[in-house]
């Protein structure tokens, strides 16, 4: 157990990471999805020879380019924060966490950043086929970057393929493939990139809708709308499918997160999913109050989603904190006790090794290995602390899910009205198309809140609490850099948006306008 924790340092470090991650995620979804839509348009051009599709590809590539650089910059800051603000975490888990980050740099980012130059500057300078291949390589490079980052993130949620070495007190990788192909990580990757595809589709929908409302660039806007709404539709359906996978893996590996997502305090067999509900403010574990002021529940759906069994028991926050003997769930207090045994045994093992006390080392190591699984709990003070912020997670989850399903219907409607040439008659829908872009970002940010705040109090699920993951630095230094990042990134974002809006207002290069048919 670490004494004299500086919670200001922990909270400001978390805040700073969340701030930069927020700005990072304003740009990355467009990098992930727009490249594919640009590639689709350019593929149609290469296959049909219609220059209009090249004009479409060029226009969206210009907007993509404005977005690309800041996405990279904010990503670099996040990577560096693992060293500056989270060095204890990096020390303990760098062997595992560093590998996918290095793979991201070598295998994905170089691919993406090399061919992005050909994509931006290669129009008319290299063969059309090579240029098209370059666009696809940028698109797949961006997705591969996301894969490696989310493999690292997936491992933090479901640590696999490693052992803890008591000699150096670090996690060490023993099975790279288990880390890479962790079902949690693979599902997280698919869920995250498809959310990027949906946001990118809405970006193109919003800009196209604005052009149609203004009566400008009509054919470019409608053709772009067709491709974006189609890609957005199948991506949003796939997003719901991977969301189902996420719910399953959260239920299996992070029951406290699931309990918070559902506002479930008392576990039950055949648990229902709360479709709509309002939590009772001030509800606390074990106070006997109903957790909801009202709720509309879909019977048994939570058991089905979480355990693929309509009658399965879903543990609630009270089962996880107070324990439930009938269901074989250990109380948090007992886990904390065992965790402290593990930490004491680890300290005893190190001392015995230093004194060449072989028998003492063996005895301590045996106690440590017996209780290792609970080691992270040994750092906790409050059993209730194993449950993340319930209202924050509960409402964020509902915002994400409700908007996600609404997006499927919206893409379907936009696609139908565009291909039947009735979109201009429904101006209200064009306005909905414009406002769908911030809503898509809202849904995505809500998803990240569920994923990351929902993992609290852990940096590495069950093994390392957030409060002992920070660097041993002064909280004032973190506050200063927080303010610095907040100011600088806000200025950068405003500048980027101004450039983007100017480029949108200016529109595509009409000198290159081609034919109207595919």
């Amino acid at each position: 157990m670490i004494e004299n924790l500086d919670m200001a340092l922990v909270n400001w470090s978390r805040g700073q990471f969340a701030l930069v991650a927020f700005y990072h995620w304003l740009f990355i979804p467009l990098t992930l999805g727009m490249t594919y839509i640009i590639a689709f348009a350019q593929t149609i051009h290469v296959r049909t020879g219609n220059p209009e599709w090249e004009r479409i590809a060029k226009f969206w590539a210009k907007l993509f380019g404005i977005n690309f650089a800041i996405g990279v910059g904010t990503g670099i800051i996040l990577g560096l924060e693992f060293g500056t603000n989270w060095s204890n975490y990096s020390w303990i888990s760098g062997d595992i966490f560093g590998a996918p980050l290095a793979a991201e740099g070598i295998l994905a980012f170089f691919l993406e950043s090399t061919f992005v130059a050909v994509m931006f500057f290669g129009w008319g300078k290299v063969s059309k086929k090579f240029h098209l291949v370059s666009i696809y390589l940028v698109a797949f490079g961006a997705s591969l970057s996301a894969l490696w980052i989310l493999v690292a993130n997936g491992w933090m949620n479901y640590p696999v393929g490693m052992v803890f070495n008591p000699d150096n007190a670090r996690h060490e990788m023993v099975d790279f493939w288990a880390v890479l192909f962790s079902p949690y990580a693979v599902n997280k990757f698919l869920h995250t990139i498809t959310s990027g595809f949906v946001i990118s589709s809405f970006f193109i929908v919003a800009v196209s809708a604005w052009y149609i409302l203004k009566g400008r660039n009509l054919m470019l806007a409608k053709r772009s709308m067709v491709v974006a709404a189609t890609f957005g539709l199948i991506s949003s359906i796939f997003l719901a499918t991977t969301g189902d996978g996420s719910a399953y893996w959260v239920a299996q590996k992070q029951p406290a997160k699931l309990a918070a997502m559902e506002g479930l305090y008392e576990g039950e067999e055949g648990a229902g999913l709360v479709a709509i509900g309002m939590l009772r403010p001030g509800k606390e574990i074990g106070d006997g109050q109903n957790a909801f002021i009202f709720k509309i529940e879909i019977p048994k759906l939570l058991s089905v989603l979480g355990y693929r069994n309509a009658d399965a028991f879903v543990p609630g926050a009270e089962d996880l904190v107070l324990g439930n003997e009938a269901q074989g769930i250990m109380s948090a207090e007992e886990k904390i006790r065992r965790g402290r045994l593990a930490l004491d045994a680890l300290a005893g093992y190190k001392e015995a090794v230093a004194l060449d006390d072989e028998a003492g080392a063996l005895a301590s190591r045996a106690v440590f290995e017996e209780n290792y699984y609970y080691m992270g709990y040994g750092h906790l003070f409050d059993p209730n602390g194993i449950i993340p912020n319930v209202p924050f997670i509960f409402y964020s989850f509902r915002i994400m899910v409700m908007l996600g399903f609404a997006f499927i219907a919206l893409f379907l409607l936009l696609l139908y009205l565009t291909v039947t040439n009735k979109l201009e008659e429904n101006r209200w829908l064009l306005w909905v198309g414009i406002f769908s872009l911030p809503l898509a970002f809202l849904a995505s940010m809500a998803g990240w809140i569920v994923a990351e705040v929902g993992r609290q109090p852990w940096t590495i699920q069950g093994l390392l609490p957030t409060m002992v993951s920070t660097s041993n630095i002064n909280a004032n230094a973190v506050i200063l850099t927080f303010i610095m990042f907040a100011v600088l990134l806000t200025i950068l974002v405003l500048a980027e948006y101004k450039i983007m809006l100017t480029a949108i207002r200016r529109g595509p290069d009409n000198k290159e306008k081609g034919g109207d048919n595919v």
Partner: protein
Amino acid sequence: MTHLSSILWLLTWPVLIYVGYRLSVYMVKVFERNNSQDQVTD
């Protein structure tokens, strides 16, 4: 193959891209057909 199910699940990503492209091309054709009689220009 311990990780077969994960690998298969991962492969749905390029499949999604391919289906996205094919479906986009089909929808563009439907759009162009519906627009051929009532041509709108920029």
